[in-house]
């Protein structure tokens, strides 16, 4: 599962070009009962100067990944942070092999995407995540949960606000603290609608996986029953039944395998898509936040200016302090504006990359899907066809 990620700004494949390649492997169950969790081996190979060495292996658990995500989200406003697989607090307890494998792959994808993102890969938090020993990691993780718990609820509120603001704008109601950028509005609307569409596609993909499993199971049962029927009969008819039953059972296995293949190669990318869109919604919320801050500060500055002028006229001794405060506010305002504009700029870059990436991801998923379906169909056709001459010869014997 190792993917070598090259710095996109560096097109040359020279051996001196900086690289950072990560893989998440070897899930292992740790602990007992309610406290049980899965640990993963994270292997890093790099020549980044900031990193300790060229190769490092650490043990991480799911909450460590969550920590990394939260830190990145906090620090890199405007960037679309690659999504994480869900918490799944209930299913976690069942820890089925499939669930673990699916999660491992998703985590691997996550880290790789971070490592190949030309801004995110510079993150210190990423370095800590990839290098720090377990104790440091644990300390870092537990320190932040307090802060981020609060953040989470804030975030939820922001989500709701953004959502309502979008619908308000769509409905034609203007709210004061809102960007009046038509292109951006279009983007927001697009993202929100996209989520519904993609979620639906993912739902049906998951159902399709289930259908394959069900069809496989029913074929197995049918095959077994027909074989029993064949045992009742003597001679040719009995043999025919038995052959058919065996074929059914064989095909049932193929179907089960196909179900797994579908899950990994078709449903997973769609799941990923959904999460990515949700992550973008988070970024939209951050942008709205930054915009609001900017506007609030602008308001405050205006008020301060009026205040200051008043004081100037009155030649009050508070005028110097007020001027001081005014300058401070103006600096803050500039900061806020810069922050907001940075986010907006980043978002524009990210959306292009996102669309490209998704076209690639989906294209690949579709290809795998179609290839898999075609292969399965051929296998089924061949299996049944091979039975025909046998049936013919048995029916006349």
């Amino acid at each position: 599962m190792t993917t070598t990620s090259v710095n996109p700004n560096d097109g040359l494949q020279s051996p001196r070009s900086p690289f950072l390649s990560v893989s998440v492997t070897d899930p292992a169950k740790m602990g007992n009962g309610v406290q049980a969790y899965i640990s993963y081996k994270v292997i890093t190979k790099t020549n980044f100067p900031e990193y300790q060495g060229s190769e490092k292996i650490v043990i991480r658990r799911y909450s460590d990944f969550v920590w990394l995500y939260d830190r990145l989200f906090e620090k890199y406003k405007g960037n679309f942070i690659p999504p994480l697989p869900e918490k799944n607090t209930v299913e976690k307890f069942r820890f089925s092999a499939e669930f673990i494998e699916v999660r491992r792959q998703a985590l691997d994808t996550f880290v790789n995407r971070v490592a190949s993102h030309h801004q995110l890969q510079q993150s210190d938090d990423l370095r800590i995540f990839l290098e720090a020993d377990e104790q440091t990691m644990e300390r870092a993780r537990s320190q932040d949960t307090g802060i981020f718990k609060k953040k989470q609820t804030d975030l939820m509120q922001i989500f709701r606000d953004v959502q309502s603001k979008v619908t308000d704008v769509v409905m034609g109601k203007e709210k004061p603290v809102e960007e009046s950028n038509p292109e951006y509005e279009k983007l927001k609307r697009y993202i929100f609608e996209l989520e519904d569409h993609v979620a639906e596609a993912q739902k049906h993909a998951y159902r399709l996986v289930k259908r394959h499993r069900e069809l496989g199971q029913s074929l197995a049962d049918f095959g077994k029953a027909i074989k029993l029927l064949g045992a009742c009969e003597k001679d040719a008819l009995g043999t025919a039944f038995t052959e058919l039953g065996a074929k059914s059972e064989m095909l049932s296995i193929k179907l089960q395998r196909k179900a797994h293949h579908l899950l990994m190669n078709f449903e997973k990318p769609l799941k990923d898509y959904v999460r990515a869109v949700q992550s973008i919604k988070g970024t939209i919320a951050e942008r709205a936040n930054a915009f609001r801050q900017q506007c609030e500060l602008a308001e405050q500055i205006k008020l301060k200016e009026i205040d200051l002028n008043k004081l100037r006229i009155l030649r009050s001794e508070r005028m110097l302090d007020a001027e001081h405060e005014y300058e401070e506010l103006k600096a803050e305002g500039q900061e806020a504006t810069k922050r907001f504009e940075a986010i907006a700029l980043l978002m524009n870059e990210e959306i292009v990359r996102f669309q490209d990436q998704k076209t690639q991801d989906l294209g690949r998923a579709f290809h795998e899907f179609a290839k898999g379906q075609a292969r399965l169909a051929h296998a089924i056709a061949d299996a049944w066809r091979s039975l025909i001459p046998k049936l013919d010869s048995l029916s006349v014997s």
Partner: protein
Amino acid sequence: MMEFENQSLEDSDLHLSKTDMESLALNDDDNNNNGNNHSPSSRSNGAVNGTVNGSVNHPLSSSSLPFAEIPTTDDTDPLLTSSSPNQNLSSFNSVLEPPSYADAVFGSFDGKHINGAGATSYDYLKISVTDPVKEQDPVNSLVPGGNTYVTYLITTWTNIVEYSGTEFRVRRRFRDVVTLSDRLADSHRGYFIPLRPDKSVVESQVMQKQEFVEQRRVALEKYLRKLAAHPVIRKSEELRLFLQVQGKLPLMRTTDVASRMLDGAARLPKQLFGESVVCAAVDPSDVAQPAKGGRDLLRMFKELRQSVVNDWGGTKPPVLEEDKEFLEKRKKMQDFELELTNVSQQAEAFVKAQQDMGETLGQLGLTYVKLTKFETEEAVFNSQKVRAADMKNVATSAVKASRLFRELNAQTVRHLDKLHEYLGVILAMNNAYADRSNALLTVQTLLSELANLNSRIEKLEAAASKIFGGDRSRVRKIEELKETMRVTEEAKNCAVREYERIKENNKSELERLDKERHDDFFSMLKGFVVNQAGYAEKMASVWETVASETSGYAAKSS
């Protein structure tokens, strides 16, 4: 799933997909034509030609036809390829013509008996049931509008000599069918008589009237055709009367206790008081009928006692079922029935799973249609347009695959239906075996009677001989008993003859069943397998198109 398809066709919003859907239809036809000319059919030709049913039936050589696109599906009559409004017309048309090629094709996979053509004979008896009409019984309705019933038009084409005619049309109601079935059961004991459709009183209240009537019409047609396919029953008087005679059905109705009481009142005293009544009135042929309720009470009691003696008594019953071969075969059939039931259930589950698969594929396709439209409308970047094109491919293929699954399933149902049918045949067989048991019981009962009478006579004779000059009353008693015994002896002989006759019927029917079973099941298996293979190939080609169109992405995968 017609719903969502229609939706996508009619929903004017999906302007993008509407043309797609329409072009879909075109592509489908192309695919089908290609599919029929392509390797699937030629491969099956190669495998099949000149093997199984070499002779007149070349249905198997065109095994590509069964999995050709057939629009309406669940219809059990393969001759009807158009939708329901034209059903009546086309069924007439298709049956009026000489057996068409299509006829032979579908006929073979469903067994050769759909249209009553005997396997070896060239006489035919074709029946169709159509045109349900609600009628009112004018006589009995005290309540205006009450007591309505449905009659069906039964049309028969035949060249069987006994019918002296070629085409007949009569109107019959369901009650008449029940009568026919009961009379056949009486007169054809020992035969595997096809079971008539249920009375299903509850269903008739619950279902929509039209749906129920249609369901019943189909069931009646199936039943009559099965009767027409039975080598003995198709020549029966009862069936002929049913099919030919205009107006009221000239067969005796049954299970009406009141009429039977009136009917049998004359015979009641004899039955109730048994042997004390003058015996000449005993009609030996009565023993040829199984004991029925009402008038045969005493006989029933006696036979019941006998059967209890048989089962629980220590003494060996006078006549044993000795035919070991029969017992062996019956055991085998019981095993077969058990497994067949199981297979039939699994077949149902399999059909359901196929149906679900088709539905989900369709829904998936529809979702991608919507996504395609969305991305196309909202496209800001080129990558979105590319993605929209990809999604469109997937969408159309998924919808195609969904349709293929639906057709595949319809065909699968037709083939696997044979399993359900045979469960019915086994029930008919069990009935025939019950006839046999009943006849045997009658024989045993009479034998017991005879033994009983004999010992009583001996006792009386012994007692009478001790009295000098004889005992007038005893002597008279002895005479009466001897007379009874004579009649009973006759009855016993009659019963034995009947029993032997039924045994013969059982035997010949079993032979017939074995042969037919062999052929029917083979054609079912073959049909099922060919069907699955054919449709799988079609689906493979659908997906291969998408795979090749998206092959560019494969090269880029890490």
